[in-house]
């Protein structure tokens, strides 16, 4: 280094000249490790040296702090036996005993480096006081091994998990841990949180943690989610199907909506027809599934538990073994395993631990079975594959597992006959199940069972007959074989076969339990303990957590409050409604009373008035009569007087109060002559009025009778014919029939009138009504008339008839046309009428052949027509007279 500091003058001393300028805040990109380091420093108010880089020169103080003093170190290291490296405390070997799992990767690396520098055999050549051994026997191997384990992330986790110094204790659920929840559990969770594969483990929190925090915490700690299984009810499924059809949601979205997987959605949609059918058959909508068969459920369950146990205890091991590089060696141990370890029919497949621990790599808590995609660092993945079939009966009896390997007699069965194995060994090229193998297996099984039944039967009878416990135990051993250890369940099942109460022995049962527990202890259950531990802790914590209790209480309280509020509200509402109802009823009643009152008053008043009016009327009438009497009915003649009396009565009847009063006044006020005049004028007036009324009545009658004729008069025969023609031409059912007919008539009509559909309908109806009466007559006279019209009538008539003849083939049509013709005589013109009247007068009834003459006088009409017309006229006059008579009669009454 060439640069150097300037020399100081003698009088110079350390001084501060001025202050440094203040720092500034700058916006930077929030990335990179140094930014992160900066932030975490700031966050935790740490000093700079805490996270200073190990590379930088200032990190030298690590060695002082972190790595244990040399003396202790050396003496300890010298005690190490490389052969026992598995049992050594790796952290202590590297001098990190005080840090243990808290040691960072950097620290481990550094510690190892230091140890290597110090203890490497080559380095120690000089130092003679430390004994050296050759090769692997040197204690340096232990250091290497320790670093091998701790330097590898996963191996280190594995080692940490079996760290003897790790406090694996789990607080139990009791009052104590409930009371001191946070003291008990916070530490436990923090201790265990480092096993989490995902970072950012939520903290337990304290009493004041928010609800969502607590939920998040427990959610995080739950065993890795198989998504919780949701089974939709039938109603939901139908809803889903409808949703799928009506909306354009994707299946995935639907799945999210209903909380099920996409494949389940697909399944449901596939089975749509089934579900809809079930739904339509009114199967209860809340049913989740329609049970197909339930009889195998139990057995499925049994096999499943068996399989799980087997997998837990052995299959990890198998897979691990098979994946190792030195396949041959490992497979040898597989053969050992198969020959010694797998015990059939015992419920739990047991791993013979004593012989295989050496080869068992440390099982990792975060792994399940190794799968194809897992990498196998440094090793080669073996292609070895075994397929296993587990079978059991419904009573829980288990049959030898069926194992399929790749070779009929693999190398690792060198001195073993596969037939002697406690499993059925079979093979095919790919080591998987084929139908041929399965069939073979089933056939064997069948045979065996047939044999077995006979045997078992006799043996069980033996057991039943045995009365000594000792004897029975022997027998059981005989039945099941000496090696077999059954699970408690099986023993207990066997208990059912126990003969009598007397032979039942408590001691015996206890022994079974002891056996069972021993069994369990022997089994290789280290595997899942770690995760299990965490779950236990979480379960316990959840049970003890006062916050959960609080939340639950809160929730309960809230619900109760809500319920109460709801009840209150509904009660109030009901009261309100009742009140309202009462009020309206009251109001109605009042209104009704009032109305009634009013009506009564009104009625009274009206009655009064009426009475008064009546009285006045009576009085006036009496007065009038008296006056008339006084004047001697304005006549001297008795007959005249009678008539006048009648008139007076009529007046009394007819005149209202005021005019009667006027009349009375007039009668009273003047002289007799004047009174007479007034009376007569009044009588005349009244009579005129009556006359007028009568006339009006007559007229109205006439107009009503003439009305039908009036409308029909609009229809000349030609049109009528057209109508009939149209009706027949367009039978009922034609589209807008009446319009078409009206159009037809208008088109062909010569009258120049336009008719609409309504007219046509009304006319046709009237014709139809007339039908029955007219028809007979018409039918009778049809021919005559036709003849007559042909002979007598003019060309016009003939012409008019011609079309009807044309359609004559149709009888009905002809009849219809005749019907129309029947009405033609009515159409007498005024001229004709005049001529007829004249003729009637000229030829009185006594004249011979009167009608011939009359018809001659009326040139356009036949004799018959004239006769008919006359008859009609006579009838009309008669009717008129009758009406008049009736009217006058009615008036008189």
């Amino acid at each position, binding site marked *: *280094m*060439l*640069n*150097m*500091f*300037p*020399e*100081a*003058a*003698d009088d*110079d*001393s*350390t*001084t*501060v*000249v*001025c*202050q*440094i*300028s*203040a*720092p*500034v*805040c*700058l*916006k*930077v*990109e*929030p*990335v*990179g*490790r*140094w*930014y*992160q*380091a*900066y*932030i*975490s*420093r*700031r*966050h935790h108010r740490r*000093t*700079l*040296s805490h996270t*200073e*880089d190990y*590379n*930088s*020169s*200032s990190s030298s103080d690590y060695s002082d702090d972190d790595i244990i003093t040399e003396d202790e170190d050396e003496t300890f290291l010298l005690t190490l036996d490389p052969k026992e490296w598995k049992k050594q405390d790796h952290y202590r070997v590297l001098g990190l005993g005080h840090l243990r799992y808290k040691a960072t990767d950097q620290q481990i690396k550094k510690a190892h480096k230091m140890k290597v520098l110090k203890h490497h055999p080559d380095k120690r050549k000089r130092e003679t006081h430390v004994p050296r051994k050759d090769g692997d026997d040197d204690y340096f191997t232990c250091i290497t091994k320790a670093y091998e384990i701790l330097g590898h*992330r996963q191996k280190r986790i594995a080692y940490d998990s079996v760290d003897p110094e790790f406090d694996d204790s789990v607080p139990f659920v009791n009052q104590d841990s409930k009371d001191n929840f946070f003291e008990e559990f916070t530490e436990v969770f923090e201790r265990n949180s480092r096993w989490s*594969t*995902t*970072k*950012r483990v939520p903290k337990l929190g304290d009493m004041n943690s928010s609800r969502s925090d607590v939920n998040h915490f427990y959610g995080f700690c739950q065993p890795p989610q198989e998504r919780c299984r949701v089974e939709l009810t039938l109603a939901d499924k139908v809803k889903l199907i409808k949703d799928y059809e009506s909306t*354009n949601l994707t299946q995935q979205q639907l799945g999210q909506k209903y909380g099920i997987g996409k494949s389940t959605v697909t399944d449901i949609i596939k089975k749509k027809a089934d579900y809809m059918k079930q739904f339509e058959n009114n199967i209860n909508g809340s049913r989740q599934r329609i049970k197909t068969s339930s009889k195998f459920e139990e057995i499925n369950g049994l096999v499943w538990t068996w399989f799980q146990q087997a997998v837990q205890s052995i299959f990890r091991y198998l897979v691990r073994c098979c994946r190792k590089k030195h396949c041959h060696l490992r497979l040898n141990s597989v053969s050992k395993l198969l020959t010694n370890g797998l015990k059939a029919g015992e419920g739990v497949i047991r791993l013979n631990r004593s012989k295989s621990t050496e080869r068992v790599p440390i099982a990792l808590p975060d792994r399940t079975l190794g799968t194809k995609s897992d990498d196998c660092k440094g090793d080669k993945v073996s292609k070895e594959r075994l397929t296993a079939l587990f079978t059991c009966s419904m009573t829980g009896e288990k049959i030898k597992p069926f194992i399929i390997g790749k070779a009929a007699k693999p190398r690792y069965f060198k001195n073993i006959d596969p037939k002697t194995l406690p499993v059925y060994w079979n093979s095919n090229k790919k080591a998987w199940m084929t139908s041929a193998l399965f069939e073979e297996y089933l056939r064997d099984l069948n045979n065996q069972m047939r044999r077995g039944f006979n045997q078992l039967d006799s043996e069980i009878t033996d057991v039943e007959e045995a009365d000594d416990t000792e004897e029975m135990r022997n027998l059981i051993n005989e039945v099941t074989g000496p090696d077999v250890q059954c699970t408690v369940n099986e023993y207990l099942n066997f208990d059912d076969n126990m003969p009598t109460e007397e032979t039942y022995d408590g001691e015996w049962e206890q022994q079974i339990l002891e056996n069972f527990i021993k069994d369990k202890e022997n089994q290789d259950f280290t595997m899942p303990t770690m995760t299990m531990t965490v779950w236990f802790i979480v379960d316990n914590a959840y049970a003890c957590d006062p916050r959960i209790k609080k939340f639950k209480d809160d929730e309960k309280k809230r619900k109760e409050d809500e319920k109460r509020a709801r009840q209150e509200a509904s009660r109030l509402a009901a009261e309100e409604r009742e009140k309202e109802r009462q009020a309206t009823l009251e109001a109605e009643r009042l209104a009704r009373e009032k109305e009634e009152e009013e009506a009564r008053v009104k009625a009274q008043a009206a009655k009064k008035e009426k009475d008064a009016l009546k009285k006045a009327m009576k009085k006036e009438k009496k007065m009038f009569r008296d006056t008339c009497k006084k004047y001697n009915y304005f006549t001297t003649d008795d007959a005249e007087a009678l008539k006048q009396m009648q008139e007076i009565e009529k007046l009394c009847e007819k005149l209202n109060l005021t005019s009667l009063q006027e009349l009375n006044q007039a009668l009273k006020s003047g002289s007799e002559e004047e009174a007479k005049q007034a009376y007569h004028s009044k009588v005349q007036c009244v009579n005129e009025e009556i006359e007028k009324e009568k006339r009006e009545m007559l007229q109205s009658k006439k107009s009503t009778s003439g009305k039908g004729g009036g409308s029909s008069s609009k229809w000349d025969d030609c049109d009528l014919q057209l109508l009939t023609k149209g009706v027949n031409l367009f039978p009922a059912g034609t589209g807008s029939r009446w319009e078409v007919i009206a159009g037809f008539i208008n088109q062909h009509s010569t009258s120049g009138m336009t008719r609409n559909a309504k007219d046509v309908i009304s006319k046709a109806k009237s014709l139809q009504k007339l039908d029955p009466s007219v028809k007979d007559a018409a039918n009778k006279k049809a021919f005559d008339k036709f003849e007559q019209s042909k002979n007598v009538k003019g060309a016009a008539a003939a012409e008019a008839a011609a079309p009807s003849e044309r359609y004559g083939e149709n009888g009905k049509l002809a009849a219809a046309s005749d019907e129309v013709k029947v009405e033609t005589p009515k159409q007498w013109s005024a001229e004709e009428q005049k001529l007829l009247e004249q003729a009637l007068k000229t030829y009185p009834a006594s004249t011979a052949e009167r009608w011939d003459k009359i018809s001659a006088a009326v040139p356009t009409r036949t004799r018959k027509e004239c006769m008919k017309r006359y008859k009609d006229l006579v009838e009309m006059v008669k009717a008129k007279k009758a009406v008049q008579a009736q009217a006058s009669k009615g008036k008189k009454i």
Partner: protein
Amino acid sequence: MAASIGINFGSISCCVAVHKDGKTVVVANDLGDRVTPAVVAFTEREKSVGLAAKQGKIRNASNTITNVKRLLAKRYEDPHVKSYVKKSSCKVIEKACFPVFDVEYQEKRLLINPREVTTLILKKMMDIAKVHGGSAAHDAVISVPLDFSPDQCKQLSNAAKEAGFTVLQLISEPTAAVLAYNIGQETPTDNSTVLVFRLGGTCLDISIISVNSGIYRVLANTTDTSLGGEQLTDQLVEYCAADFQRNWKCDMRENKRSMAKLHSACESCKHVLSTMNSSTVFVESLYDGLDLNCNVSRARLESLFSSILPACLQPLQKVLDDAGLDKADIDKVIVSGGSTRIPKLQKLVRDYFPDAELLNTIAPDEVVAMGAAVQAGLLCTVDEDDIEENGVVECCSKNIMIKILDDNRVEKLLTVIPVNTPIPVRRQHVLQVGKDQCSACIQIYEGVSVEDAKLLAKVVLHNLPVDSEDGKSVTTILHFRREGSLHVTCCEKTSGITQDVTIEVSES
């Protein structure tokens, strides 16, 4: 340890990198490509994302959505959206002031907004990442352009969340590029100024980033959305079309389908010419049953680009001016974006910055994703509490210098803590002391430059041993504390003579 993901979500293409077990790798998609086109297509049967969608564009142009990134959180009136609508082959309508794509999917009309399209693309990215990172991989860092508004960032992260990611952070693209090259990450004392030259599919983006104590700061940035790889392709397309017209005397420019075919052929030709010296654009039955067979050499391509490539260098001076820097101040130049693969462009940039180191060892279109994945890997290891996204740090406002004598015994100021170094910081400097030197005077200065340096303090070491053999050295440790004061410790190791002084911070 779950893998963490870095995603470069571009307007033309996307790239995924996975950080796992301390290594960062760009992962290939199901077709083996490391870059996936950001194209979504809807057909009668399915929706597809990536190359399949892009290739189907020729047939299914009206239901193929491209270039969606810049539409995020933009209103319909926005001029960018307007121009997009004009150009796009896919129908875009206005709905509640925002643009919405109107496509036909499974024979039904489907309205889909840019965010949902983004979700579809990111889901694809998720699938790709999961193949390599394992099913537990969901922690992601996604890159965004520097000029993305908070709204756009929010929409993007929402889309990512819908796609199943846990978005740890959105990182700006140039920063990601710098991070990918690990600049300033190894040793915290490194200082450098990096220029990131990014020419993507649709935009040119130049940023200058200063790296000080491992902390990045953007000094200047410019974005030009009118330049990009698409434009370059268009030049080639135009050339080929003209060639076709010359050969066959018919104009195929009107035919959209032919143009689409030609466009994709030209694009691949352009890619090939970045590595080869000549290539052929060949399209069978391009128009009216006529084939196009057009040989293009790299020189030809460069001449075609001659108008555009220099234009890309235009903004450089502006950016330098904005940052208040000179060409010579740039230490490193990073090229990113697919278009910077063009050799000519790299040469131009290299010539422009003769003194700077051109970093192009990571494929330019993957570098951003790599950086994002590095950041994701980093964030995975830190506590959630320690993640802070608003990057404001306290820095010292002036250079802290000490006076030394150089070889010629000339006094000189040496910067120990440069300006804008985040505090707290500790730096040490070791200097030898002459054999016969019995005292040393360490003078601490502060100032923006050497000229206006102001003496802060003097630390004097007296009575240094004279007879030492190895030569003495004086270690000066400058410790800038959080509260702003500077603590100076000077010590001579052999004799153990130590002096220290604290310079307080001024109130102003």
